[in-house]
Each structure stands twice: as C-alpha cells, then as structure tokens.
C-alpha cells in the first residue's frame, strides 16, 4: 500500500457502488435518462462523467434489474423512463444490508484508530484519573 493509492481505491469503490445508487434512486419513482443522469452528476463525487451513466443504465436493463418504457414528452422527442424491476429491488435490499455492515465496521475501525495514540497501537488503555 502506498500513499496516494486511496484516490484510486475510492474511484473503484465508486464504480462498484454506483449501480446500487442508481437502483436506490429508482426505488421511489421513475426517472427519465437525462433527469437521472443530471441528478447523479449533481451529487458530489458520484460520477466523473455523466456520459458514463448511460452504459451503466443499459447494463442494468439487460440484467433485468431495471425496466424501461418510452413516454411522450411535452417538450421534445419521447423519453426513455427507468423504473426498478423486482430483481433490482431484491438486489438493492441485499446490497443495503451488506453495505451497512461494512460501513459500520470500517467506521468503527477508523474511529478507534483515530482515537488511539499513533505510537502505541495495541497498547492497553491508558488509565484515567
């Protein structure tokens, strides 16, 4: 492990969790492509390029995790709307549990290491008066 690697790791993690974030957005309502991509693009650190979300949406559709339908638009050409498929809901529920466990564990470890004095890892707790 080298300094600066964290950035790369975070980029990989973001790529890994992005599909679930999309599924989570679709949990409550249908979104059309531009609307969803634009909203994701507005969340800090979520996507590096809005254009990369479209291949992801296509993949989720091919995998049966989201369903799509075309709907007329009052302002232009028909829009492709995305909604969560039952398989997607199941996948999201699975992920949510796993993610919370991992997040809590990592948070716990990070918090406790931040509290520890850096020079004495694993040393017995200091006595307090």
């Amino acid at each position, binding site marked *: 492990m080298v300094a600066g690697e964290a950035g790369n790791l975070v980029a990989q993690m973001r790529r*890994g969790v992005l*599909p*679930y974030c999309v599924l989570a957005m679709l949990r409550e309502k249908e979104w059309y*492509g*531009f609307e969803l*991509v*634009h909203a994701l*693009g507005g969340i800090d650190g979520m996507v*590096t*390029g*809005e*254009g*990369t979300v*479209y*291949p*992801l*949406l*296509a*993949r*989720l559709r*091919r*995998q*049966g995790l989201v369903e799509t*339908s*075309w*709907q*007329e638009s009052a*302002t*232009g*050409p*028909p*829009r*492709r*709307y995305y909604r969560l498929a039952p*398989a997607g809901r*199941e*996948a*999201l529920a*699975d*992920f949510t*549990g*796993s993610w919370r466990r991992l997040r809590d564990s990592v948070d716990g470890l990070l918090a406790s290491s931040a509290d520890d004095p850096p020079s004495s890892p694993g040393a017995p707790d200091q006595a307090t008066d």
Partner: protein
Amino acid sequence: MSDHNDDRLVADYLRRLTSAASALPADRRAELIEEITAHIAEARAAQGQAPIVADILERLGDPAQIVQAAAEPSFSELGAGPHVASGHGGPAGHVRIAVRLMYVGAAASLIKVIVDLATESTTRSAALTALKIGAKKSGLRVSASQLGSGITDTLVLAWVLGLIGVGLWILVARASGRGKDWARATGSVLFGLYTLALLIGPPNMGIRGPETAAARILAGIIWLIGLAALVFLWQRDSSRFFKAHAPRDHGAKLAN
C-alpha cells in the same frame, strides 16, 4: 457563442463518440449514441436562453471514457453482482447446475442406448416369445420372420430415438449455458414429451425380465435428472440470467 458554433461543437463531440464506439457491438453503439444525443438535446433545452454547450459536453466527459464504460464487462460478470457478493450463488448459479445436470442426462441417455444395444439378443428372444404367446392367445397367424422384422424395426427406432435424445440433451444444455431462453422452453416441452412417452410407451412388447427392469430404472433416473434440471432452470435467479442475455428490444415502446 452562436448556435452555429454550438452545433459544430456538438457535431464534433458526437463524431468523436462515434469513432471511439466503433469497437462496440452495433446495437450497443447505436443505443449509446442515441442516448448521448438525446442527453445533449435535453440539456440544451433545459438551460433555456443561454445554453452553454461546452459545459454540457464537459460534464458528459471524454467520449473515450464513455465508450470504455460501455465496453466494460457486465456487473455480474465481474463477480460484483448482488447475489455473488452476498453468498447466495450468482445469477448463473442455478443455471450452471442445470447445465451440468443436463450433461449428466445426456451421458445417462447414452448409457441407456448402449445397454439397449448390449442386451439386444436377450430382448429380441424375450420379445419374440412374448409376441408368439400373444399371437396364439388372440388366434392370429403370424410367421416368426414377420414378428422378427417387427421387433427389429421397434428396436432400431428405440436406438435412433435414444441417440436423438442424447443430442437434444446436449443442445439444450449448451444453449441454456449461453442464456438462450428458448432452450428453457424447449427443454420443458421435451421433458413433457418424455414424461408422456414413459407413461404411454414405448411398447415393451410384453417382455418381463431383468433387462427391461434395468432399462426402466435407467429411464426413471433420466426422468428425475430432467426434472431436477428443469427445477433449476426455472428458479428466479435463472430467469434473471436468461433475461439478462435476452436480445435488446429495438422497438420504441410508447407507454401512455
């Protein structure tokens, strides 16, 4: 910046995208270009009076990067699928078991054909005796050569059907492994036909003996293998696997 310049920027961007996407399969390339074109149009319309096209394109990102995202292996192929991660077996888990079972079914069917061939002379003489008794009881006058030729036809038919069966097992197994949904439907129909054939035939020509008992047990085992394979093929994660491999629907489905 004038509309003309904006249009040129967009055209240039889409040209770079099209060029970068040349390695993608035609349907994915067309879909990607269509989506990005629609995105740009929506963004320009949404920005109202003063659309800043350069910003829109910058937010979209480098065309090469977008194409790279489209070319990446799918979510589940990476082993990052929800079911793999949670240890319940991947979307293809049950399909994989079903495919293996079908190969076992093919092997068992082949063994049955070999057993039938190996016990041919015993089957033939037993069948001849049984048919002679049957003919005598019903008062029919049939020569031994007529009976013999009838038995040969039946046996050859059974072997040919057996070999076709082996081929069908392999065909359905391979197609299922590749996510072809028709394989699942075909397998189900074939299983139904096999079940029917077991119930109403094939004619055993009135033979009773250890050879036919062995053949019947083997036929029962093959039936059970087929049943198990079908159960795995129709699991929910299997359906997801087949759906994921289904060809893309090109039609614009307009839902009102």
